[in-house]
Every structure is written in C-alpha cells, then in structure tokens.
C-alpha cells in the first residue's frame, strides 16, 4: 500500500481550479520533493493531503485512510510556514500538550526525548516567546516529530532556517527515512531537498508536469528538471 496516494485530485477556489487532476504516490520510505514556481499549487497540494481542506474531486489516502480519519491523522506530521507552538507556554508544556492530543503513552518522556534530540533540553521550561528564531524552529521540528508520524508533510521546511536548524532538520529527516518513514516536502531549496529526495514531482499551474525518481543528474544540476519540464 502507498503511504501517500493522490488520485485525480482537483481543488477549486470558487470555479478556479488550483489543482488539476493531480496523481501522485509515495511509497513507504520514499522522500518526494515537490518543486514548482510560486503559485504552482505546492502549498495547496500539501495542505489538501494533510487534510486542512477537502479536494473538490478525487481522493487522497494516507495508508489507505482518508486524511481526516483519526487513524491517518495519528500517522501524519505537518510543518507549515508557522511553527505551531504557543508563545505563552514553555517548550515542555507545548510538547506535552501535543503528546496528550496524540494520545502518547508517556507525553512527558517523549517530550524530553525530543527536546534532547533538538538540543533544547536546557531551555525546556523557558517560554517560547523568549526563544530565538532558531530555537523556535527546532521546537517546531520537535513538535512535528513527537508522535513518531509515519508520514511527514513539510511545506518549504528549509526556508528561513538558520544553519543549526538546517543541520538538525537534515539529521532528523535522514534518521526518519532510515526508519522507513515517508516524506513529502515542497521546496525552493533544491540542493538540500534533492540530497534527501528519492523522487521528484514538478507542479506547474496545478498540474503534475513531471513525476519520477530523483536522478544524480538532478542533484548535480537542480535546475535541470525545470528546464526540461517546466515553463521558462
């Protein structure tokens, strides 16, 4: 079974199709890089897969379940443009909150583990609003990975990260892939993404212009896919 299956998905804003007949799959253990110009529909596609919006037509399946299904939601982790942690709570409180929402057996233990993995255990009781930007980003990573999701959906995760946060994220993602997790990430940072990617999909005006394995050529010349399959 595919970890992520997108079948004939259309998404409409009013009558305007932001996604047109998108067909994509990601097998367990794959890392799919979604590339495309701004406005191509990458964020829309990711958010639809994550279940924030329903597709107008077509079906989305996360290990066979609809993304709104509780089973599917337990298996998904999403990192969007915001960090999705509360400024007024401490790092520990934030992670314990999400641990409880995801019904983890020992939220405190999982929270401590991930604070260590992201290098935040010394500031675990500090309020997030006092964190530096890099620290907030690392906490965002901890939040998304806390419940050991099998499928990770990341919207331009490397954008605006500082070096330390990039390193943390790359490590965490490599470990996740080694554990057989599936990643779908949209990106402008082709180099960092293509180093991790096993597959690439190019979105152009809501349609899939290219979908295939990531080749060494792509890694050495990230612009190649755009030149070959994109527009201008």
């Amino acid at each position: 079974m595919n970890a992520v299956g997108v079948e004939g998905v259309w998404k409409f804003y009013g009558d305007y199709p932001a996604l047109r007949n998108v067909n994509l799959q990601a097998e367990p253990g794959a890392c799919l890089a979604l590339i495309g110009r701004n406005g191509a529909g990458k964020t829309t596609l990711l958010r639809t897969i994550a279940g924030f919006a329903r597709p107008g037509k077509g079906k989305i399946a996360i290990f066979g379940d609809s993304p709104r299904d509780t089973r599917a939601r337990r298996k998904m982790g999403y990192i969007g443009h915001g960090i999705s942690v509360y400024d007024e709570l401490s790092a520990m409180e934030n992670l314990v909150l999400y641990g409880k929402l995801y019904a983890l057996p020992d939220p405190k233990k999982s929270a401590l583990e991930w604070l260590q993995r992201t290098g935040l255990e010394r500031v675990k009781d500090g309020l997030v609003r006092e964190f530096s930007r890099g620290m907030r980003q690392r906490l965002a990573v901890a939040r998304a990975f806390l419940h050991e999701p099998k499928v990770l959906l990341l919207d331009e995760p490397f954008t605006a990260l500082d070096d330390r946060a990039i390193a943390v994220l790359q490590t965490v993602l490599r470990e996740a892939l080694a554990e057989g997790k599936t990643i779908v990430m949209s990106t402008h940072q082709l180099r960092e993404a293509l180093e991790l990617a096993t597959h690439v999909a190019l979105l152009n005006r809501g349609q899939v212009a290219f979908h295939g394995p990531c080749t060494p050529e792509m890694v050495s010349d990230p612009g190649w896919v755009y030149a070959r399959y994109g527009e201008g």
Partner: protein
Amino acid sequence: MRDKILFVIGVAAILLLARDINAIIDLPEERNQGIIFKIIFFHVPMAITALTCSLVAFIASIGFLITKNFKFDAVAVAVTEVGLAFLAGNLITGSIWGRVAWGIWWAWDARLTSALVCWLLYAGYLMLRRAIEEPTQRATFAAIFSIFAFIDVPIVIFSIKWWRTQHPAPVFWGGGSMPKDWYALWAWNVLAMMLVGFVFTAVRLRQEEFQREIDSLRREAHAI
C-alpha cells in the same frame, strides 16, 4: 427560454398587482383607522414573502453544505437579499402605518421588533459574505450562518411576543380587523408579492452566476 418564462411571470405579477391595487382603492374605508388600514394588503404579504425567503435560504444552505454545488449558494444569497428587501418594506409600511394611525414613527411592539431583529440577522449574513474573498469559504460559512439564523427566527418571534405579553405596550394593529370579504383580495396580493419576489430572485440568481464565472476567469487570467 428561461428569460422568456421569467418575463411572462414578471408581467403576470405586475398585472396582478395592478388589478389588486385597483380593487383595493375601490374598497370602503375601515371603521377605526380609515384609509391607512389598507396598507395591510402590502404590509403583511411582505412579511409572509420574507419568511418564505428565509425558509428557502435555509434549505438552499443545507443543500450547499451537502452537495457543494454553487447553484445552491447562489439561490441562498439571491433569496436572502430579496427577503431582506421585503422585510425592509414590511418595516417601512409598518412605520408609516403607525405614524398615520397613532402619530408615532416607531413602537417597540412585538411584531415590528421581531421584524427588526430578523432584519439584523440577515443583514449580518450579507456582511459576512462581503468579508470573505474566497468563494468556497464564503459559500460554506454563509450557509452555516444562514442555518443559525433560521433556527433563531422562531425563537426571536416567540420570545419577543412573550416579552410583550408580560410587559404590554400599545399594539400597533390592535383594534382594526379585516372584513371577511377582503380575505380573497388579500390572498391574491400575497400571491402577487411572492411572484414579484420570485422574479427578483431569479434575476439576482442570474447575476450571481455571471459574477462567479467572471471571478473564476479573472483568477485564471491572473494565474497566467
């Protein structure tokens, strides 16, 4: 074809109204209130039409939430706007009636107050629509609010009536009663009002569909 049918209905409505007005003018004046009592031929049918519009909006809203078909959304907004216009007519004729019959432009009597509250409810619906740019979200949220509003209408009417029963105040229309032989004419006028409402709704519906098409073409053009 659709336009022709609409035209015929429109003409029928106007003829019916004209005939009714003619007949109304010929009627004798009411005992207590004089000629102004004849406003009841318009005042109450407008309220009935507005209530019908509210019901149709409710059904259309549920229809949209279930099917996601924008035709239902177009019906909901068209019929709500028409209903608001008729309700405004009800309020204005009620106010005029009060002024002529009792010398005051407004009284917080049960029916006028309920009409005002309902008007505010559905005006809120239109304001909500205006505050949301994206068409699917606008239709969804408007439909939800329309459901909330419709459920409130009977509660509003009941609670304001009960309030006035406990704290009686001059009732705007106490005292005058409609002679039995006027009922037929009054019923014809209800029909005429409904037909006028139907025509307005259909016209507004057409405009709404054009607007949607233009919006999506505009988005398409911008994307290129």
